[in-house]
């Protein structure tokens, strides 16, 4: 019981002070019939025993760093500098609560202000909030926010949007009067996919949700779509699942986005089997009061010194209750801190350089894959992710290569269902070596022969 400081004597003295005979006197309000049930679980373990037990479980998994690795589709393997993880484990950050008492939470608040500033700059938007749970829940919140702004309820979801993001948005809005119209994914023809979105916008549309780079890796100029949206007084919501792309690809803000939602995992955060991640959420100044989530703002203290506080909380559930803009309470504080520290370490210079490294690695991967008989690369313009078609079921190929220690990518069937079972999504980052690419190519040649 290494986490419990009270001794038996302490407990006895405290019960005496309270005037209770036993600790169960304090539980008198629990009906006796249900008090102290038998719990069929093992008793306590030492630190060493727990390490052995969980360590054995961890070793049953193949880690991304164990060999050639090409998975992306919304979660990416990047190198995170050691200092990031050291700093977020400082107890003052790790064990703090939401900064409700700003006089003793300036560490959290100032880093949130830096985070908001970085996210606004990266996305090319005016303001960003203190983070959402992740990109997918942020996507659903963006649709709800667009409804509040436009007072319309029809949202169009482009085929380029990650199928999980689409599913989360549909699930989250199924009991509201929102009408979510999902458009077809056309992995081989991103321009046709975009044109279908442009054609679908009308005067009932609240927003268009489009992902760039798309889930199949294509990058597109969204300026025409933005113009179409604005001509119909609809909002353009741009989803970005690979934050490194902000260093290489024209920002959503520059293309006319009204709301940008993103997954920030790439910067500062590990893969973690899907979570915790950090949702990025940015918008135009004029919509700030319709935003969900926490916001940190600048102010001064009684001595006139600059400081930061949580602000505009009249949008939030603890003040507005059923009239709040969202029910969100917790955000992704520590993951946002990791993002901020890693982003500070990179700076504009490092991010741009690493983003170009990602792109160069992916160009190399494209050339290598194109040389494999039966493999067709579908992308002309991309950042660090490609969609390729195989002459057979991609899931089988991925399983075969996993047996050789090569994690080859995400099979289309897993995300899109049987209609895309021959599709394979592959990503390369600064972690991808020439040897990794060679291994993938020779593995594919073997599997396809």
């Amino acid at each position, binding site marked *: 019981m290494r986490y419990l400081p009270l001794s038996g004597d302490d407990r006895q003295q405290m019960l005496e002070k309270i005037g209770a005979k036993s600790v169960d006197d304090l539980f008198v309000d629990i009906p006796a019939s249900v008090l102290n049930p038998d719990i069929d679980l093992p008793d306590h373990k030492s630190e060493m025993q727990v390490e052995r037990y969980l360590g054995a479980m961890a070793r049953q998994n193949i880690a991304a760093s164990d060999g050639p690795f090409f998975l992306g589709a919304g979660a990416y393997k990047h190198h995170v500098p050691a200092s990031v993880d050291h700093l977020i484990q400082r107890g003052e950050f790790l064990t703090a609560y939401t900064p409700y008492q700003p006089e003793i939470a300036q560490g959290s608040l100032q880093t949130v*202000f830096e985070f908001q500033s970085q996210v606004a700059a990266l996305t090319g938007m005016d303001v960003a909030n203190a983070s959402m749970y992740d990109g997918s829940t942020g996507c659903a919140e963006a649709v709800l926010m667009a409804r509040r702004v436009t007072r319309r309820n029809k949202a169009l979801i482009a085929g380029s949007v990650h199928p999980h993001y689409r599913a989360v948005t549909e699930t*989250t809005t199924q009991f509201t009067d929102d009408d979510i119209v999902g458009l077809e994914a056309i992995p081989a023809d991103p321009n046709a996919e975009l044109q279908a979105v442009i054609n679908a916008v009308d005067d009932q549309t609240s927003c268009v949700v489009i992902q760039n780079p798309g889930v199949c890796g294509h990058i597109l100029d969204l300026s025409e779509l933005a113009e179409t949206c604005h001509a119909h007084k609809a909002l353009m919501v741009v989803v970005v699942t690979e934050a490194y792309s902000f260093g290489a690809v024209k920002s959503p803000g520059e293309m006319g986005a009204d709301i940008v939602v993103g997954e920030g995992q790439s910067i500062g955060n590990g893969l973690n089997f899907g979570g915790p991640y950090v949702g990025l959420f940015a918008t135009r100044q004029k919509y700030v009061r319709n935003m969900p989530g926490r916001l940190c703002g600048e102010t001064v203290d009684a001595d006139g010194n600059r400081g930061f506080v949580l602000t505009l909380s009249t949008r939030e559930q603890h003040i507005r209750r059923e009239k709040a803009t969202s029910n969100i309470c917790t955000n992704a504080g*520590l993951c946002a801190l990791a993002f901020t520290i890693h982003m500070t370490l990179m700076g504009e210079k490092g991010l741009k350089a690493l983003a170009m490294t990602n792109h160069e690695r992916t160009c190399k991967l494209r050339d290598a894959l194109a040389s494999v008989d039966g493999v067709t690369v579908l992308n002309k313009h991309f950042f660090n992710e490609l969609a390729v078609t195989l002459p057979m079921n991609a899931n089988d190929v991925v399983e075969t290569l996993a047996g050789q220690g090569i994690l080859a990518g995400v099979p289309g069937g897993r995300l899109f269902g049987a209609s895309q079972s021959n599709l394979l999504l592959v990503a390369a980052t600064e972690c991808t070596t020439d040897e990794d690419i060679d291994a993938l190519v020779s593995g594919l040649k073997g599997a396809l022969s």
Partner: protein
Amino acid sequence: MSMNTQGRPTGVEAITPAGDDIESYSGHRGLRLAEPLIHELGDDTTTGVDVPDVPAFENALGGLARDGEIGAPGLSEPQTVRHYTRLSRYNYGIDMGLFPLGSCTMKHNPRLNEKMARLPGFGDIHPLQPQSTVQGAIRLVGELSHWIMTLTGMPAVAMSPKAGAHGELCGVMAIRAALEARGDARSVILVPDSAHGTNPATAAFCGYKVKSVPGKSDGRVDVDTMKAALDENVAGVMITNPNTCGLFERDIIEIADAIHANGSFFYCDGANFNAIVGKARPGDLGVDAMHLNLHKTFSTPHGGGGPGSGPVIFSQALAPFAPVPHFKEVDGSWVIDENGEETETFGRLTAFHGQMGMYVRALSYMLSHGADGLKQASEDAVLNANYILASLDDLFSASFDGPCMHEALFDDRFLKDTGVTTLDFAKAMIDEGYHPMTMYFPLVVHGAMLVEPTESESKASLDQFITSMRGLASEAIAGKTERFAGAPYFAPMKRLDETRAARKPVLRYTAPEIISEVAE
């Protein structure tokens, strides 16, 4: 004066203490190091990471390259480490002292949990890897689910919700899906007036009308009022138990029976589960859905506002509607079912599988404590709260009769006519070296002070806290209000102007030259 052999004075007798009026040349105040924003320290040519040489290549960005300045300054590694280390020192955390923030369960965060979550087999695996390569990870979620279901006495759990409020959404959606499946269109969710703000916000999010139910004078839900409010329009009732007044709802089984007899569902807000782990199971109390905050009860760190994790346990009636993914063991293999085609799932609440990093930490905590330790932890949490209640009762105004559960609720009656508000009192606690308790919540008492010490405190720590609290209360009651009016005095910053922040929001850094351009 005593001297060492080099003539250096080693005593303090001759030093006359000067006041706070000494200005430093640096802006620092000893260990309190002033720290600007990164935007004021860094620039667009500095970086703290390795920048690889990229060979010449033809890009495939299709004319969409980002050419302009981004506006994200960089720092070298030493500068970065120093910047965030300095900023960290402006924060209060559990690691520094007692953090009695009611309803938030600020317990010790074991570092073993952090170590386990960072094992490459957990921290460095992709959510869409072939399931054959992540058998240990799926098994971990399966084992955690087993612990959760056993501790709560419930037949099902949905692991994916990202936080408590997300769990509430999950629970209320399952209720709505179950009602729609039986063709029962109900429109109202009942919420006691002591509820967390997330409860009514969640119900509204799911398209329900929220009806508030007043509590009774002992701080609990009134069975008769509740029964009277139950009609054919009530889809569900959201009750926090133990409730936000720090009390166990004595009549919970009778209330649950009434809810079920009405064809409605019972959502329990599990924010306060830390009081009853191993002592009572929600499954024995008639609960249909309840979220657990892994970041409260099961020791995963709060991290300055997340990440949380809010698994939701379900009764047999709601289990078929649980969101995907589902984790299960089939013929000796662990499987993630991402579509739930054989169930009536209401859908997907998040990309991928939820908060794996938090699952590892929570299971590490559960294994460490074991069934015996988890029960002891709850008993200690409740004992600590009652010890504080008993030690402050004569000076403070306890809102309701004890015993309490794991938190003690006071209101501001004891400060009546002193000129000291709950806010002032809280800020004076900062000068005593404590994070204040939760204040002005729950809304059912005036000037609420909700104190939750958790099981992590030693008796000596509690005694010191009690001494501070009694001292402050005595001064306030005696009319000595100086230390309250301007508090905090000893914090890194004086009281911050929240009104100003909201009136003209400044939400990001803007370079001074841009601000002056706009002004012109």
